[in-house]
């Protein structure tokens, strides 16, 4: 028997809903005043990109827990809250709106789509946005993008390093002339990011660039790889995420393209991408964003002992040390170190606001000694940011899947500033002109 709602109950319900929402908002804001540094964690543990999002989120959260076992950031306890975005922009925006009111320190969205949307919002809300290894490549220019921090590298760096590596393989960048390089990319802003740099490099070094877009989420790649087979490129660069990566490798197997000639970006080179292909993926190469799989690193051992050992681990202990776990770990480390640096200026042992933390990220100076002390020896190289350079470092290596694990197969490369710097400046200028914002003044750099 249906119970129809009358006008009164309907109105009362709506009013009650609105009231409860405002109260909960107020309560949340009040709770955040306590002496805690709040880190929102935008993660995706469901959906088509979950296999890669889960280890990253586990690494991030584990590091925050680890910091607490060491007494927090100079005594300030670290709190965090996860919010499921499912890699969708509107859910990411909703999570951002909900969590920013809790005195959020910094946001890391792990999605280029959400990054674009949040880039518009963070200048007004004065919360920094770290996009370590993804996001807009031009946001490395800190004079225009005051609140964006693509720490450790952008996609233009990644593409540049790959071309350098290919040049090295051929015996010199000049030997690349006349070769064919195919880019199989996720048809989204994420996948399209490297194209401008690859086109520049193609003009400079004389190789032919073939662009093969794959519709998201990337399960349908049969025709892409038939085209690869037809055009017979010398190398295939894979710019995918989530299920697109393993599908690409499987299709490469199915069309007989040698995996040794495939090079993935640093988001296309982790265990979930190759695990179920196993031996057939042997020889597949990918970029390592400074670190690879690091089961022997000191920080890994510390976390296994102090976090997992006490039953506080997020996720399985076998995951600790895997590529994406380390990625999340490093991202969290950078977030915390920025706050520590901000405390050096604004008051040790105090809770940092978003603006203060932003100064910290802009003045990061992590040398090898500090990194070793944190347990990141051999995992990360020194990183130092400045007002104009929000990237801080541009180092990467190549690692290869042996059938059982990832092994480093190259030296360190540094992305070539010669090509990238003017491109970054030009793109940042274009953004500033569109948005009608001025470049920051040197005085502003001191704030």
């Amino acid at each position: 028997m249906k119970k129809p709602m009358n006008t009164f109950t309907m109105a009362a319900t709506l009013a009650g809903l609105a009231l409860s929402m405002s109260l909960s908002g107020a309560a949340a804001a009040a709770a955040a005043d306590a002496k805690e540094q709040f880190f929102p964690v935008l993660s995706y543990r469901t959906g088509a990109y979950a296999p890669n999002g889960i280890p990253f989120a586990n690494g991030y959260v584990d590091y925050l827990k680890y910091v607490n076992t060491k007494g927090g950031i100079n005594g300030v306890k670290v709190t965090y809250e996860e919010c499921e975005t499912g890699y969708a922009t509107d859910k990411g925006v909703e999570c951002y709106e909900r969590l920013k009111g809790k005195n959020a320190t910094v946001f890391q969205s792990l999605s280029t789509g959400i990054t674009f949307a949040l880039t518009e919002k963070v200048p007004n809300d004065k919360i920094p946005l770290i996009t370590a290894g993804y996001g807009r490549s031009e946001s490395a220019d800190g004079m225009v993008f005051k609140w964006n921090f693509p720490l450790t590298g952008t996609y233009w760096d990644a593409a540049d390093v790959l071309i350098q590596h290919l040049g090295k393989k051929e015996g010199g960048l000049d030997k690349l002339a006349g070769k064919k390089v195919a880019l199989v990319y996720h048809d989204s802003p994420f996948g399209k990011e490297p194209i401008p740099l690859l086109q520049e490099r193609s003009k400079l070094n004389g190789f032919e660039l073939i662009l093969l877009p794959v519709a998201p989420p990337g399960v349908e790649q049969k025709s892409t790889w038939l085209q690869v087979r037809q055009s017979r490129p010398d190398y295939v660069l894979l710019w995918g995420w989530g299920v697109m990566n393993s599908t690409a490798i499987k299709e490469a197997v199915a069309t007989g393209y040698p995996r040794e000639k495939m090079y993935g970006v640093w988001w296309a080179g982790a265990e979930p991408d190759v695990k179920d292909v196993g031996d057939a993926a042997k020889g597949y190469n990918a970029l390592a964003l400074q670190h690879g799989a690091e089961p022997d690193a000191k920080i890994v051992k510390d976390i296994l002992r102090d976090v997992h050992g006490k039953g506080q681990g997020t996720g399985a202990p076998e995951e600790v040390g895997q590529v994406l776990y380390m990625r999340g770990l490093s991202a969290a480390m950078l977030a915390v170190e920025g706050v520590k640096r901000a405390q050096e200026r604004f008051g040790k042992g105090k809770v940092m606001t978003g603006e203060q933390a932003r100064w910290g990220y802009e003045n990061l100076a992590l040398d090898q000694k500090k990194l070793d002390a944190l347990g990141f020896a051999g995992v990360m190289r020194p990183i130092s940011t400045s007002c104009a350079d929000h990237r801080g470092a541009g180092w990467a290596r190549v690692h290869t899947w042996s059938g059982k694990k990832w092994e480093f197969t190259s030296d360190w490369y540094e992305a070539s500033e010669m090509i990238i710097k003017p491109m970054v400046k030009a793109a940042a200028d274009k953004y500033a002109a569109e948005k009608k914002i001025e470049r920051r003044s040197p005085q502003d750099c001191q704030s």
Partner: protein
Amino acid sequence: MSFVPTWERQTDMGFFLETLIGGLMSGILYSLVALGFVLIYKASGVFNFAQGAMVLFSALAMARLAEWIPHWFGFQNLVLANILAFIGALMIMVVVAWLIEKLVLGRLVNQEGITLLMATLGITYFLDGFGQLLFGAEIYKIDVGMPKEPIFLLEHMFQGGILVNQEDLAATVVAAALVAGLAMFFQYTVTGRALRAVADDHQAAQSIGIPLDRIWVIVWSVAGFVALVAGVIWGSKLGVQFSLSLIALKALPVVILGGLTSVPGAIIGGLLIGVGEKLSEVFIGPMLGGGIEIWFAYVLALFFLLIRPQGLFGEKIIDRV
């Protein structure tokens, strides 16, 4: 035939044949999913949008059971694990079918088509969430021994040979066997005849004593079995994870091209869509920048519909005023 890929200059004809064969075979794979749609629509008039979620759910069940059963019973034999997992997944799908009939369809009898469609969309969300909750959200492996390496035919005629994907070839054989099996089931068994009667006219069938709700459970179970087979094949190809339910979106143009009420239509429609998609992507795609196969299938189906609004083999829509 040879198993070593050769990279000499290929003639365009060879590449065309390669794409054609690849398209035909991927079309068969779409038909596998489309069969589920057609079966349910024929028997109960419901357009089951949840078919994709059923493919995902059954594949997840199969993948995880194949992992867990050796642990529970303590043996290592992969073949036995796969067989037991298959039976287990099939039983799960039958239970799902029974629950859907009892809780959803039984209460929505005589509602408009769009209501039933929306109900199946609700079931889709439910199965997506429940499957991931029960079985997990990572990529899982189904290993039924499908060959992964390609074979190359006619290397003496075309340099480089014609690439044929062995896994797709195996899938084609399985699909053919499935269609033949279903055809025999419908023609020669009592239940099959009852299903055909219900598909023809619900009320007449009910008036001669065919129990409608039991028939619907059987239909949904058969559709579940088809979904499981499709799930195993696609899962073996791509790995079992959430995007598998999006394969159903590819089966939609197949179903409307072939006609919602026709099993041969699902097959022919699948072949046409598969070929059209691959050929367009490979030969027309580069001119337009690539990535066109997603909409090409639908536009192709649309053009066929403009000529025959009920699909190639569907029942003619007759309106009486």
